[in-house]
């Protein structure tokens, strides 16, 4: 049961990676990374249940925190770079 969920989550992460590589604008890539991070949190929780190790959930919680901070940091970075026009491709 958990194995099926883990496989499905891996498939979602693969599709998000395809969108990251294909994404025309930088914001598509940020969206794909955001989806990847969220699904990693779910994958960690499901994998923790699969292998019977409850401490994976702490890692999942920390990952959710850091993913959010990372997305906001990248957005702030992209906004300032394109603002000052130092050649961020868009």
């Amino acid at each position, binding site marked *: 049961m958990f194995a099926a969920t883990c496989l499905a989550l891996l498939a979602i992460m693969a599709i998000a990676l395809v969108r990251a590589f294909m994404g025309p604008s930088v914001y598509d890539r940020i969206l794909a990374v*955001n989806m990847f991070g969220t699904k990693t949190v779910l994958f960690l929780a499901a994998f923790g249940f699969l292998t019977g190790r409850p401490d994976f959930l702490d890692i999942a*919680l920390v990952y959710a925190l850091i993913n959010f901070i990372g997305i906001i940091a990248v957005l702030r970075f992209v906004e300032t770079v394109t603002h000052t026009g130092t050649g961020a491709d868009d």
Partner: protein
Amino acid sequence: MELILDVLSWILLMGGAFFGITGAIGTLRFPDFYSRVHAGSVTDTLCALMIIGGLILQAGFTLVTVKLIMVLAFLWYTSPAASHALVRAAHHMGVPPVLLPKPDARSKTREGSSSKP
């Protein structure tokens, strides 16, 4: 009782996986950035709810359930906020929304809808 919990968590987990995959395919296929963000972030909350709900049913009343609820609560707060910040930044930087369907093969079949302003 155990069987009911197993069946319920099976349904929840598979439903969550299904919604996640449809959202990911939506992110892949939609023509324009804003519809992709919508497809991608809509599933974040629903897919997380169903998968973590399925896991909670398996964990029962233990500390693990508390951690799962914390993870779910945090995902529910941050992923919409991150998507909002993403769309606001994109809009601020002038990413053009595609309002009319692109003039490719499909636009012939939907001629009526695209003529409206």
